């Protein structure tokens, strides 16, 4: 894997507050990296600093091993990038005029530019809107135009700043799937800021979780989802159950962790007496009616009562009190099958391998 972009000791300070503080970050050629995190985590600022739209207060940015500096070098660097914002920010001209604008800025002649942008118009399904005024476009059409404009200059790195946040779900779905195809085809290095972890999971090779301007964790989606480095990342990536406990016993591969009087077996390493945090993703919790006839392979079987059932479309979120608070996702179908109601008694189980352990004292 070739490193295309690297940030070292990158700091952005504005109005006395530290907005971005990134020790070391590498972006590999051809990958799609998502920056996720809550509002104010510094995703947008980091994007702007990496693209040199905002001058970093300290640190270094290396593009293909070369430091991006002042003056002409910045312009040269910026001309290898493209950026798409949450708002389409189209110019007051035709669709094709917008898509050609990056080329025009680079001094490409009109007929040459037309030839270059044609495949982009096709790619994003806006060829039929070619001569329409940008003023008359719908939100989705406008964002497609904005994406085509970015791809028209064949950027070496594409920056996306919450590009789908303002779109309604069906439009969003269709644009995301188109972008997915285009990225697979062009292998354009992409850095995308988003607060939607599903979007990040779907499009990304790697995910960086940001908090307070720092990168808390940067890794493959599966790792970030299943093995978050800390409680913050765990809760942000959708781990509903986060339990604090103490290691009671250990063996070759497993730990017995005491949580609020219950014992939970998990796979991992640790010392007896060590404080740990257990992360359980809701989809890994299995529910059953506690009549003694149903057996599961799980060793961690807990009896409890259903506190609350919250519908989430295809799923229902079921909150269980079993000595500690456990959250499970159940398909609507299963919910009806088991005829679960709030206040029912229930048996919940989790495989030891599906529980992630975070050692509080650090590894």
């Amino acid at each position, binding site marked *: 894997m070739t490193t295309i972009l690297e940030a070292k000791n990158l700091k952005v300070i504005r109005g006395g507050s530290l907005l971005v503080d990134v020790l070391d970050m590498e972006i590999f050629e051809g990958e799609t990296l998502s920056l996720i995190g809550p509002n104010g985590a510094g995703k947008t600022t980091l994007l702007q600093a990496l693209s040199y*739209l905002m001058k970093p207060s300290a640190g270094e940015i290396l593009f293909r091993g070369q430091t991006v500096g002042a003056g002409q070098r910045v312009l040269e660097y910026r001309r290898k990038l493209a950026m798409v914002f949450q708002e389409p920010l189209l110019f007051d001209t035709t669709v094709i005029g917008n898509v050609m604008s990056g080329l025009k800025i680079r001094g490409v002649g009109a007929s040459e530019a037309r030839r270059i942008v044609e495949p982009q118009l096709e790619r994003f399904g806006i060829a039929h809107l070619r001569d329409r005024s940008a003023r008359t476009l719908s*939100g989705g059409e406008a964002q497609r135009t904005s994406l085509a404009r970015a791809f028209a200059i064949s950027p070496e790195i594409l920056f996306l700043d919450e590009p789908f946040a303002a779109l309604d779900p069906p439009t969003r779905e269709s644009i995301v799937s188109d972008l997915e195809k285009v990225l697979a085809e062009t292998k354009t290095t992409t850095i995308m800021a988003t607060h939607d972890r599903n979007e990040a999971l779907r499009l990304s090779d790697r995910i960086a979780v940001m908090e307070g301007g720092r990168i808390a964790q940067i890794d493959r989606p599966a790792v970030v989802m299943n093995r978050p480095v800390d409680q913050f990342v765990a809760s942000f990536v959708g781990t509903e159950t986060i339990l604090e406990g103490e290691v009671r016993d250990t063996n070759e591969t497993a730990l017995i962790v005491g949580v609020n009087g219950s014992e939970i077996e998990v796979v991992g390493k640790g010392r007896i007496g060590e404080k740990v945090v257990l992360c359980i993703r809701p989809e890994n919790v299995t529910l059953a009616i506690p009549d003694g006839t149903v057996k599961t392979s799980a060793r961690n079987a807990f009896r409890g009562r259903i506190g609350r059932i919250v519908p989430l479309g295809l799923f229902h979120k079921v909150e269980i009190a079993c000595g500690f608070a456990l959250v499970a996702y159940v398909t609507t179908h299963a919910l009806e099958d088991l005829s679960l109601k709030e206040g029912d008694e229930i048996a919940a189980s989790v495989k030891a391998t599906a529980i992630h352990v975070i050692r509080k004292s650090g590894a």
Partner: protein
Amino acid sequence: MDIILEGILKAFILLVTFDPEVLGITWFSLKVSGTATFISLFFGMSVGTVVALTQFPGRKFVVSLINTGMALPPVVVGLFVTIFLWRNGPLGFLEILYTPAAMILAQAIIATPIVTGISLAAMQQLPRKMRLQILALGATRLQMVRILIREARLPLLAAVMAGFGGVISEVGASIMVGGNIKGYTRVLTTATVMETSRGNFDIAIALGIILLLFAYAINLVLTTVQQRERPR
């Protein structure tokens, strides 16, 4: 009532027969106010753009100064320009009092704050991220300013129109610094005042109708611009 009806009828005849005097005054008014607007455009757009796109200490004060200037009374401008241009005044050596140049100067002073204020508003009305988007497309600073001006072209046209509308309909400064000299510094407004006082209501009404037509054309453009939407 007779005077008015007769006046309108004669005015109509003067207009459709392209009366040389009425036409001459109209053409001269366009030249003076057009040139003044052009000059104010140069200063107003530059200052408006700079103030809109930069941050500096005292910026609020400058903006409030510009907004006050938009309501500068033409007679006050006329008075000060006259005093400065008197033979024995500080700029008397220019010897331009009672010339078209003096009228252009006064009208440019009146129009500049108007153009500046509206340019400022026009540039500020663009989405703030637009500047980042333009830079992200690889533009230099200069290219960015050019694209921003292009983006704000319709509101900027409104600035032109408002400035032009302000000076072509202005009478106080023109009569003071121009002197309403026949065939030399006589414009639509000063001629209207004089012809009314002479009792030549027909010519006065004809000139008034021309002024109204200008006002209508200017407002038509302004309304069109205001009701237009920006792209997303």
